[in-house]
Each structure stands twice: as structure tokens, then as C-alpha cells.
């Protein structure tokens, strides 16, 4: 059995990866992907915690994280479609710099 601490370390690595992804990436889709990674890292951490304490609560929390993250991404993708229609680009830095028309 994998010790739960190692799962936590993996979760931390995933989380940091996600953070770096959000900060570095310019494309909206990739940013959403990185956020998803962060959420899943948290979920993994919850499962690990659940294993540490022998309780099912963490796993239940993970089941809650999944649809929430999915809904978030769904809305994010819908906005991405609209953004692309309007700005013709998904580059976040360009969009952030755009003045009002």
C-alpha cells in the first residue's frame, strides 16, 4: 500500500505544477486546464488525508470537488467561446490589456 504521505507529496507537486501553469500560460484553455490540475491535486490530498485518518470524509469531499471543477470548466469554456468570438484570440494577456472599445 502506498503510504498516504507520499500521496500528499504527489498532491503538492501537482498543485505547484498547476500554479505554475496558471501563472505562465497565456492561453485561456491552458489556464483552465492548470486550474483543473490544481483542483485535482486538492482532491488527491483529500483522499490521502482520508486514508491517513481512516475516514471516508475526504473521499466524499473529492466526489464533490469533481462536479464543481467540471462545472467551473464548463462555464470557462463557454466564456472562452464568447471571448474568441469577440477578441479573435484566447491570449489572456492581450485580453487583459484591451481597452474598452
Amino acid at each position, binding site marked *: 500500500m502506498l503510504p498516504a504521505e507520499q500521496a500528499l507529496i504527489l498532491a503538492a507537486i501537482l498543485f505547484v505544477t498547476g500554479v505554475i501553469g496558471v501563472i505562465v500560460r497565456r492561453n485561456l484553455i491552458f489556464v483552465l486546464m492548470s486550474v483543473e490540475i490544481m483542483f485535482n491535486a*486538492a482532491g488527491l490530498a*483529500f483522499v490521502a*488525508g482520508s486514508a*491517513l485518518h481512516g475516514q471516508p470524509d*475526504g473521499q466524499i469531499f473529492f466526489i464533490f470537488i469533481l462536479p464543481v471543477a467540471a462545472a*467551473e470548466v464548463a462555464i470557462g469554456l463557454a*466564456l*472562452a467561446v464568447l471571448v474568441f468570438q469577440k477578441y479573435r484570440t484566447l491570449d489572456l494577456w492581450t485580453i*487583459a490589456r484591451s481597452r474598452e472599445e
Partner: protein
Amino acid sequence: MSQLATLAPDIIMAFGGTLVLLLGTRRSDKAVNDFLRWLSVIIIGGAALALAYTRPNSLPAAEGWIISSSINIVFGVIFLAILAWTVLAAKAPEHAAGEWHALLIYAGNGMLILARSGSLAALFLGIEILSLSLYVLISFFCHRGMALRGGTMYLVLAAFASAFLVFGLALVYASFGTLDLAELAQRVSSKGLFHAPMAMLGFGLFIVGVGFKLAAVPFHMWAADVYEASPGPVAGLIASASKGAVIAAFIPFLFLVNTHGDILWLISAASMIVGNLMGLLELRVKRILAYSSIAHIGYILVGYLAGYNGVGITGVGAMIFYVVAYALAIAGAFTALSFIERDHELGVRDLRGVARVSPALAFCILVFIISLAGIPPAIGFFGKLYLFSAGVSAGYIWLPVLGLLGSAIGVYYYLRIIVNLYMTPGENPNLKISYTPLQISIIIATAAAIVFFGCFPQTMITALKLF
């Protein structure tokens, strides 16, 4: 069965919201619009009634995820009231009234869960439901101005912060092994946090996430752009109820003041100073209000640091009072400003001439601004007095002093709004102000309430203690 009674408000809101959503797909014209608006108000009212009749300290529902002690019920009623206010005062889009009202109700649902959360899971759920609804509401009028940009920015940053928040909660869970807030508080106070670095880190990340939601310094950069991009009433809702809901959910974590108190102190002080200073540079009204909002969060955090200490009004009591006082003023201000039609972002120059075209509206805006600035006879004066008194009696001398100095600095940009509203001749001959009779009566009633409770604050305090 009693669990159902405790969950009744949430059930009403969730199903009601879906009902409104489904009904809205049939037709969209003015009659349907009005019908949906009143239906939404009835749903919210029903939820509020169900909430108000929940006996305090009745059984928690859903394995303790939703608790209903008096403070939770008070917060729940406050947020539902603000939501109903927003529903009535906002101008719903004609083509998508169903979605608009449904989203507002779902946002209210999120706020309700936050107000009555008894577990980390409920906390997360509430924040997410609220945020998801807000993402769409902000970018609702996607063809207008910067709405889409604001919505996207808010989505990216808020999702980022939520992820921080939930990862922090995961670390806390891994340390302490419980999701229940009461249990958590007990385990933290018995074991102490300093022996659990993972939990310290977890709570730190949690504070980062919460700080973002509240737009406290240094997580405040999104506030100005997003507030400006949102439709007026939605900005009012974000500034008042959504922040209030996060505060309500944050209250059970008061034990953090012992360990992370310094960080919270810094966040509060920085918000008060930076928020007020940056507002001085702004010339667009909604951005000014956004920065003032940042400063107000600083003030509220003073009350948070005071916790349950305090004079006749505790820090927590002062926070509840301030949430109400602030909500009246900021929601009113944003909504009143949205009545002024313009094709570019509202600058202070655009306020000129409003007093001549619509004196009632201008006077209401004046009352809102006075309340935000904390000047009698508006209720904001007593709100600040209570917050800072609670802070001083809990032993924080410098923080309230900083807060008062910050307000003195901030008065300048409030004056700028008033000066442009009343004391400079209008430049724009095409100034057009549009509102329905319902909207203006709500605004006037809000202004009257601000003055009334500003002269007789005890009535509000007693009412809040009723629950």
C-alpha cells in the same frame, strides 16, 4: 424529518431557481419578465420564511453540514433580503430573464449554504455555487463593454483562488482528520496549531483564498476591473452579499486569530490604507467604489480580529451590523449609478447634470455616498463606530487609528463624487436616466432606511438580535 425542515430554504431556492429557469424558456417579453421577477421574489421570500422559522440550534442537517444557530439564521436572512432587493431593483435582460433570475437565485443558494455552513465541505460547496453563478452574471451582457473581459478575468482568478482555498482545506483535513467545523475548532484548540506545520500551511492557503474572495490587499487587483465590468446590481451583490457570505463562513475560523493573527492584521491594515489611497487616483465611479470596497473589507476585518470580545456590541456583532449597513449603501450606490445611461464607462464627469435631471436619484446617491464615508446621519457612521470600538476594546489600538486615518483619506474621493454630482454644471446634453417606478422607489426606500437607521441604530441592533 427535522433535517428536511433545516434544509427547506436550500431546497426551496434550488428547486425554485430551476423552476424559474424552465419557465423562462417559453417566451421572453415584458410580461414574462415581470412575472419571473415576482416569482423569484416569492421564492426568495419563501426561503427566508422557512429560514426564519427554523428554530435556532435545531438539529444540524446533512450530517452537520448545515447548522442553524442564531448567527447563521441572521446571516441567511440578511443575504436573502439583499438578494430580493437585487432582483427587484435590477433591470433584467429581456431576452434571457429566466436565466438571469435563476442565476441570482442560485447565487443566493450559495450564500445561504455559506451562511449556515457547518463543515468544510459545505463551505466549499457554498463558495463554488456562489462563484459559478457570479461568473455568468458578470459576463451576462456579453456584448456590452468590458463585461466579457471582466467575467473571464474573474473566472480565471477566482478559480485560481478557489483552488488555493480547497487545497488549503485538504491540508487541514489531512492534519486533523475532520471536516466538521466545530470538531475542527476543538481539535485545533486542544492540539494547538504550532505543532502541525501542514495545518499552518493549510490555513495560510485558506486565508489566501478567502482574502481573494474578499478582495483584501494584496489579493485585490481584480476588484476594480471586475466591478466596473459587471452590471450595476450584480456589482452591488458581489460587494455586499457575496463578500458578506464569505465573512459569515469565515467567522467559525476565529481561532485563526491566535495563530495567523499577524497576517490578518497586516491584511486589514493594508486594505484600509491601500484601498483608500488607490481610490484617490481613480476617475471612474465604479472603480472608486471598488477601491472603497477594498477599504471597507479592511474595516470589517478589524471587527473580525476583535472576535467575540467587545463592548455591548462584540466584534462579530459589529460585523453583522456593518454587513447590513454596507450592503444598503453599496448595493444602492451601484444600482443607482446603473440608471445613468452611457455608452462608455461611467466617469465622474458623467455625473454632472444628474442633479438637475433627476434630483431624487442624485439625493439618494448622496445619501449612499455619505453612508459609505461614515458621516452622520447615515448608518455607516455607526457601523464604523461599532467596528472600531470593538477593535479598541479587544486591544487593537493602532488598527482602528489606521482605519480612521484611512477613512479620512478616503473621504476625498467620496467628495469628488459629490462635487461632480451637485456642484459642477452639466456638460452632457444627452444625459439620459432611465428607471422604472419600482426601481426608483426601492432606491428611495433604501436611502430612507439608511437615514432612519442612522438616527436610530438601536432598532437595527434589536432586530438583528431577534434571531
